[in-house]
């Protein structure tokens, strides 16, 4: 039982990270219906910005908030300079631009901060003896903090979408950009906001997990795969769905890898992909995604 609980906790911890990054993917996709393949690298770069701010003397919390703020602005700049000029229907061009952005940010981080992993401090106590005992296992403060921040971000986004005019405009744009434009909503501005929110969310997750992963140019590679899988499972236009799917993905993957002998750690990633395949065959829009209906 103790082992099962430990594995469930491990799975939730992984899943929260997948869900967090999936949320960033959804922020971009909801408005533009584009998958930002550079989302992980944008998050990674933000993590390095936080490192630089901390190295410059800022306390960790201010370094993180500073990186989030810089990323928020940079997300808007990326949308305005690289994405918007291509037009709303340049799907393949935008996909290629995000790949280019991926490569550029990865190389730039390597040139600026080098190839060695860099340690980044935790916001909460994170020494080996900093934990809460829980049914014979250890609940560590950092994963709890990440879960708490994820819930807070979800709550903030829910409030934004539900109770503000800006959120209403974002929902209208996500639902039908043409009609939203006719209603006087600045659709391009709303799309830019989606990129800004995504960049900020990415910055948060990268800086929060950095104490365990350390900062490296490859720190987000695998997470992006899982995040894309989570967003697909939950529905690319559903923030809640993406987060829940991320957590479910983390738990199921970990349990299958732990208890199904031939899977083990070797085929752990394949578990996520099999789940993804099955769900796409049964429910192509994901569990919480909305079906697109087009008038013909």
């Amino acid at each position: 039982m103790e082992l099962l609980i430990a594995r469930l906790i491990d799975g939730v911890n992984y899943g929260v990270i997948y869900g967090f990054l999936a949320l960033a993917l959804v922020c971009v996709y909801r408005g533009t219906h584009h998958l930002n393949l550079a989302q992980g690298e944008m998050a990674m770069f933000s993590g390095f910005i936080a490192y630089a701010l901390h190295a410059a003397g800022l306390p960790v919390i201010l370094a993180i908030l500073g990186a989030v703020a810089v990323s928020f602005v940079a997300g808007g700049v990326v949308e305005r300079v690289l994405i918007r000029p291509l037009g709303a229907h340049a799907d393949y061009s935008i996909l290629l631009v995000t790949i280019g952005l991926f490569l550029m940010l990865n190389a730039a981080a390597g040139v600026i901060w080098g190839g060695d992993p860099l340690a980044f401090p935790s916001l909460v106590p994170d020494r080996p003896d900093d934990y809460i005992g829980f049914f014979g296992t250890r609940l560590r403060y950092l994963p709890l903090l990440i879960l708490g921040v994820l819930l807070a971000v979800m709550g903030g986004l829910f409030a934004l979408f539900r109770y503000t005019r800006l959120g209403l405009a974002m929902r209208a744009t996500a639902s039908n950009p043409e009609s939203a434009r006719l209603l006087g909503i600045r659709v391009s501005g709303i799309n830019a906001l989606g990129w800004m929110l995504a960049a900020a969310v990415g910055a948060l997750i990268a800086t929060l997990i950095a104490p365990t992963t350390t900062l490296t140019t490859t720190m987000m590679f695998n997470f992006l795969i899982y995040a894309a899988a989570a967003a697909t499972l939950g529905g690319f236009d559903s923030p809640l769905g993406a987060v829940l799917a991320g957590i479910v993905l983390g738990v199921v993957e970990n349990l299958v890898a732990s208890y199904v002998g031939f899977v083990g750690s070797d085929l752990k990633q394949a578990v996520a992909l099999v789940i993804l395949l099955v769900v796409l065959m049964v429910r192509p829009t994901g569990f919480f995604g909305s079906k697109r209906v087009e008038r013909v």
Partner: protein
Amino acid sequence: MTKRSSKLTLAVAVAALTFASCGAPGDDSGSGSSASDAAVEAAEALGIDLDDCPADMTDPLGDTAKVGLTLPLTGGPAAAFAVLGPGVKSAFEEANAEADLPTKFELILKDDQFQPDKTLVAARELVQKDGVVGFSGVTGTAGVLAIRDLLREECLPGIGLPGGGGTVLDPAYPEVVSGAVPFSLDARVWVEDVNERFPEGAKIATFIGNTESGKDYAEQIDHWLEETGSKSTIVDKETIDAADAAAPSSAVTTMRNSGAEVLFAAPTGAQCISIMTEAANQGWEPVIYMTTNCSSSTYFGAAGGAADGVLTLQTYKDVGSPRFADDAGVQRVRDVLKEYGGGVDLTNTTAYSGYVYGQMFVEAAKQAAASDLGLSKLGLIVAARNLDFHPDMVADGIDFTTSGLSDVAPIEAGELNSWSVAEGGFQQGKLYDFEGELTQK
């Protein structure tokens, strides 16, 4: 191979070459088809048929010669490995300025993005377009495997190629001389040390990268457990994807639950840090042996208290460790890098490793120039197969020695050191020396 026997082998080879060359007066063309009997004999001793090699195989290299190095200059791995270039280059520049060699070397770099298929393309271009006379510093077992057939076809020396896999130490490829600590040495030292600590046997867990190198590690661990008659058993095998940055909490949960008292860990990059911290975070305290690829103060320092007491095999001097702060060899190489490295980061251990790979090539060139074969491609290969020297960046008591095809591994000794948080560096441990014992039979 001991220093003495290595020198004896080289002397016998040179004497045979001298004798044979006396028997073939006037035959100094040095081409593959008209090579001296001595050259043919020396080549055959290494399994090289000169008839299958380019005609200039035994010709002197001339006043200038190009040496090739493929390495990641773009893409993710570039951040870690691009700095090898200035290190290797410094060794050649230093030789050009200070060594009395008949040939000045120029190092030509080509980007391979650390992808074996691109390594081969880049290497082929270096051979065909630039006319390189050999390679030095090409990194990684997969990269070395990608080019070894090219080296074989073109009869070109690849000296100081840091690939630790067993396949890099294959006598069937005499042109390839590794510059890395072989995984077989790592695995053997781990097993021998476990046998000493746990005479009645221990439960071992392995945490190994899901890569070709990782498979090599796994095979070597199994091999040495059996070979040494160890009573220890592997109770859990965990693997990790090379790109996986997540804390390995699931793997550690499983290994801890297996009751393992010993952990053999061979992950890559930042995973070196996260496996140590995760084990400590879960309160699991096995005897941890960390791959030599992780044996730098960069990784151990970043792991904080979790690294205290963790063991790792070291052959090269760690420039970040207080133990070598005033070391004359490190200081000398630092000065060389400062002069020829083009502003390379002098705290980066990879640059220093690059210097050693280049130094191996230069050392072979010196030996070849002093031999009757002269400084030719064949002379380089023969000299590299009979190396015996002590690089400045290698710990005292460890020499780089090879002897024909009977000892193809230059590095067969290392110190099993432990990290000390109090000292802020590695504490010197036992020196394990398996000289001449790691060549595949």
